[in-house]
């Protein structure tokens, strides 16, 4: 009673969560485009995935720039005189630009319509750079030592798994009724979503057994609206349910089940990214 608590605003708002979601899908699509050079069943997805990936890069880049309070200064981050390599954001900016350039070169090569070694090499380099995107976004959170839940080395791995899951989910929707592609994408979705589930359980467990800040963050993330998003939509509907559906879809090869699982994975991964970003920030606003 009578306490005077000065509240602070959260540092990163929902735009950043949408950016994480978009960047995850584009990385996943890039993996699929490269995968099509190794697995013939994915061949019909090669161009679609590459174009989708580049399109989402434009959306993600615009979101990132719009989220800055000084959007026109985004070039500062690419200025060699200003770049500060102890910040994951600096590495991320270089990674995004390199990915954009490689992605463009790859699409130019694809438009030639040849199965060239150069095309395969460019696909591989693009996919490797795409791998850096979820890694940097996860690392961007994990370096903040004072934030419970963020400050875990598993965060970049979780973001990579989320990228594979959501990219494969979009790939499933793009593949339509292609049974051969669906068979592979089902495997990708099943194992990456299962990995996401295992990591989430691990993160939640260690958070709950942490200090007072960790314990309170666990409470914020598992109750109320945030709890509904994180546990309800993210974990139960977006991770556990699709894993079960995909497991049984294998037995009956049902396209509808795969589509539903893909949509649930997309919903879940969006909710998870939002909750993972916003939840651990809430407690800090009252310190």
């Amino acid at each position, binding site marked *: 009673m*009578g306490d005077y608590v*000065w509240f602070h*605003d959260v*540092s990163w708002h929902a735009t950043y969560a949408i950016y994480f979601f978009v960047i995850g899908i584009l990385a996943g699509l890039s993996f699929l485009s490269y995968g099509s050079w190794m697995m013939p069943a994915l061949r019909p997805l090669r161009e679609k995935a590459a174009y989708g990936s580049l399109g989402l890069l434009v959306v993600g880049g615009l979101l990132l720039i719009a*989220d*800055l309070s000084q959007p026109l200064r985004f070039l500062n981050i690419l200025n060699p005189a200003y770049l500060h390599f102890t910040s994951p954001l*600096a590495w991320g900016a270089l990674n995004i630009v390199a990915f954009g350039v490689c992605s463009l070169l790859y699409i130019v090569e694809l438009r030639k319509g040849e199965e060239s070694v150069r095309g395969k090499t460019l696909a591989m380099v693009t996919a490797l750079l795409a791998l850096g995107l979820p890694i940097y976004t996860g690392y961007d959170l994990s370096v903040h030592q004072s934030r419970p839940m963020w400050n875990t080395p598993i965060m970049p791995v979780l973001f990579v798994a989320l990228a594979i899951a959501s990219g494969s989910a979009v790939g499933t929707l793009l593949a339509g009724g292609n049974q051969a592609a669906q068979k592979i994408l089902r495997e990708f979705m099943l194992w990456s979503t299962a990995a996401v589930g295992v990591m989430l359980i691990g993160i939640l467990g260690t958070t709950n057994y942490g200090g007072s800040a960790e314990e309170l963050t666990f409470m914020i993330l598992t109750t109320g609206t945030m709890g509904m998003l994180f546990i309800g939509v993210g974990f139960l509907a977006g991770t556990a349910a699709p894993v079960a559906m995909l497991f049984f879809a294998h037995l009956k090869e049902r396209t509808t089940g795969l589509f539903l699982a893909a949509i649930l994975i997309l919903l879940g991964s969006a909710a998870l990214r939002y909750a993972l970003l916003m939840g651990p920030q809430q*407690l800090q606003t009252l310190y």
Partner: protein
Amino acid sequence: MSEELRVSPIETREVPGKRRFAMVVDVRRCIGCMACQVACKAEYDTPLGVNRTWVPYKVVGKYPNVKKHFLPRLCNHCDDPPCVRNCPVEATFKVDDGGFILQRYERCIGCRSCMAACPYNARFMLPAHRTYTPITNVVDKCTFCFHRVTQNLVPACVQTCIGRSRVFGDLNDPTSEVSYLVAKNATQVLRPEQGTKPHVFYIGADRNQTEFGRDAYRQPEVMELERAAFKRHFKI
């Protein structure tokens, strides 16, 4: 701090030939008049809704055994600052001689990475519109009154503190008042487990305020109206 405890080359505590400014806040002497907060606002034209220094308080105990605990807060000018590490464009930096953590407003892109990195909530975003000052839409924070200290003055909050609760000086100078206070009293820093080596030392701070309590979990819903009004006002 001994030489062995210095882990990062950025740290300047007890480095010969360098100054390391610090503040000691004797909470036992704080009367909660908020004059420091007002002096800071006057010095920097800090807009409504954000503060470079603020004095939260907490009423602890049950009647008749109650006490109001104050905890003046500001940037801790850490010796190993996570905000400096996290800034992608070096808009925030540490002054080698003095240990001030300052901000280059013209370089800041407003990514708020430093705000996320700060364990003390010492950083804030300036609003888009200000009446007298053209610096807008960038991150701001306490500067330990760099412009005053370089003219041999103490920070505005220290100057105005009516109970002499806030004391400022060079911790690397063994004859300074802060060195004396830190040596002779049991002091406490905020969130020492973060390894930031903060340079605001508290004497007599209460655990109810330095640590997260259960009501931190309850507060967001209690303050939802105020929070919403704040966001509407600043178009966040």
